């Protein structure tokens, strides 16, 4: 069975199809909203909010005794919201810094949630709520109805982002300037944070409260590496989120009882590492390559300058010199530089092994020296000689 057949087989499977749809919708939503969380430096707020959702789930179950995901997720959203408000309140009214406030809220809410889960498990009715699936997610339990809820959240959240595109962009870049222009910054902030809460809630059943913040941050962080445009970044984050969702579902349905949620998160993380390393311009590998090339160019220009100065001593800028002499002046590595220079046609190699400047090389070295030392022009006498040599050509 080839890989394509395998995919066809997987997606003809009803459960995989449902779970896959849920994972994609979840990935797109959290990817898009994660961009705003990332750009507004609220990545950790997302983590605190997703952990804070746990007691909300438990309380919703205790109050309604229903496993209906719409009820449970409503409770989760409410608690996540209260958690976010808690962080804002602790930061605003105490002298604690935001990181400490996040830590406090996260652990208090999460701990309370775990206590409630234990209480629920000991209930005599033993309704077997299976709420612990919300800890790390259990995608296999997604029903079509759940996917419907996630889909509704996705439509709402993405619609809001499209509608308020310019407002959210301004809020994220320069909130004070938004306020100066009369936009209600507090309201916009509340709306955007609520959308992040919705994105978190959409992923709770698939990925769980513990890992959900990764789905918020990873696609956005990966997308940031590839582009300098907000619109492209949002689209890429959506694609990365969806890809992680699909990847996780496919991998976990292939492997023996691999948990879907964590596998999705691993896929998202791989996208981040790949992007951090290999993205053009911002990627580490790219930056290394650029730095190395720059280093080589500077080294080559130094060799070129030596040739120029040696030539000036002979009164002829094109006077060829043995490679040995250059190596003594510049050090090892001169051979590589000469190859580079020859490739640019800045030096010519004579059959006897000596090397000399070309016309282009002379122009390049003069240009380089002017930029390198704008204050100190080359000594007048050798410059004049060089000019003379040039004229004699």
């Amino acid at each position: 069975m080839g890989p394509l057949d395998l995919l066809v087989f997987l997606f003809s499977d009803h459960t995989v199809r449902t779970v896959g749809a849920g994972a994609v919708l979840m990935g797109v939503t959290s990817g898009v909203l994660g961009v705003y969380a990332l750009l507004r430096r609220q990545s950790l707020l997302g983590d605190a909010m997703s952990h804070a959702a746990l007691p909300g789930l438990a309380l919703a179950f205790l109050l309604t005794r229903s496993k209906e995901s719409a009820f449970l997720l409503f409770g989760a959203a409410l608690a996540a919201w209260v958690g976010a408000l808690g962080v804002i309140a602790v930061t605003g009214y105490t002298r604690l810094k935001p990181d400490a406030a996040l830590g406090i809220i996260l652990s208090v809410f999460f701990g309370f949630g775990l206590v409630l889960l234990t209480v629920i498990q000991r209930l005599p009715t033993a309704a077997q709520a299976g709420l612990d699936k919300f800890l790390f997610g259990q995608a296999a339990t997604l029903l079509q109805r759940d996917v419907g809820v996630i889909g509704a959240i996705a439509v709402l959240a993405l619609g809001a982002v499209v509608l308020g595109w310019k407002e959210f962009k301004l809020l994220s870049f320069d909130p004070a300037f938004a306020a100066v222009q009369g936009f209600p910054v507090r309201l916009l902030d509340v709306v955007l944070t609520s959308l992040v809460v919705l994105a978190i809630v959409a992923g709770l059943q698939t990925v769980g409260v513990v890992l959900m913040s990764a789905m918020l941050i990873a696609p956005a962080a990966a997308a940031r590496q590839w582009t300098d445009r907000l619109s492209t970044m949002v689209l890429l984050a959506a694609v990365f989120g969806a890809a992680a969702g699909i990847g996780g579902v496919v991998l976990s349905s292939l492997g023996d009882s691999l948990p879907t949620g964590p596998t999705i998160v691993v896929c998202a993380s791989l996208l981040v590492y790949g992007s951090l390393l290999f993205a053009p311009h911002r990627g580490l590998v790219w930056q290394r390559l650029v730095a190395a090339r720059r280093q080589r160019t500077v080294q080559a220009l130094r060799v070129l300058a030596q040739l120029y100065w040696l030539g000036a001593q002979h009164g002829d800028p094109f006077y060829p010199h043995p490679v040995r002499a250059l190596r003594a002046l510049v050090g090892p590595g001169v051979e590589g530089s000469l190859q580079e220079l020859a490739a640019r046609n800045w030096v010519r190699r004579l059959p006897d092994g000596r090397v000399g400047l070309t016309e282009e090389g002379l122009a390049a070295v003069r240009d380089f020296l002017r930029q390198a030392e704008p204050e100190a022009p080359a000594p007048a006498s050798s410059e004049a000689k060089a000019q003379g040599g040039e004229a004699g050509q």
Partner: protein
Amino acid sequence: MTAPFPQQALAIEIADLTVAYRDRPVLWDVDVQVPAGVLMAVVGPNGAGKTTLLKAVLGLVRPAAGTVRIFGQPIKAVRRLVGYVPQHREVDWDFPTSVLDVVMMGRYGHLGWFRRPGARERALALAALEQVGMRELANRQISQLSGGQQQRVFLARALVQDAQVYLMDEPFAGVDALTERAILNVMRSLRAAGKTVVVVHHDLQTVREYFDWVLLLNVRRIACGPVAEVFTEENLRQTYGGRSVALEVKRS
């Protein structure tokens, strides 16, 4: 009926303004009247409340007491008439956007809710970039700008706001001489067009040359008026910790 507000003589009228962060007063009982059409410097030592004063005028900080009026109206009623150039360090310049995009943000208030900028906003933004000498950099990523270029982008963004009153927070901070000249020229052309420009300024040497009106501020208003009248040795001493200066005078 009163005349439409831009014709009124006072562009900004600040009365009894007090602003406090926690229990520390940043501005104390400040009265300032800025006539329309002046180019005014706000000078004072660090922590004198200069930025806070601008933010209070803009309605970004809530005063503990006092009122601010722009052409006789509260700021909420006349937002379109006020342009703002914040300190360029106040935003994250690694934000994924271009110079042109940032300048067009100055039109968002005019566009109102949900309407996207179009060809008209683009043209206005390009004209403003031309005015600050940054037209060629319109499509540049903002992360690749120097400090002086960032400052000029913010200036262009304020220009497209097409305001009557401009508030600028240290627009000359960290810019080279050439950029300073370019920014000054923009300010002067604004004044020539009858606009009022208020500038938080640090270089006392250039106050006389650049500005025609000055506010000396150190939590309290020390003096405010035409540069020739109030920019005096005595007022400066009061503004910049008069006591230490007085001690030195006694010793010598």
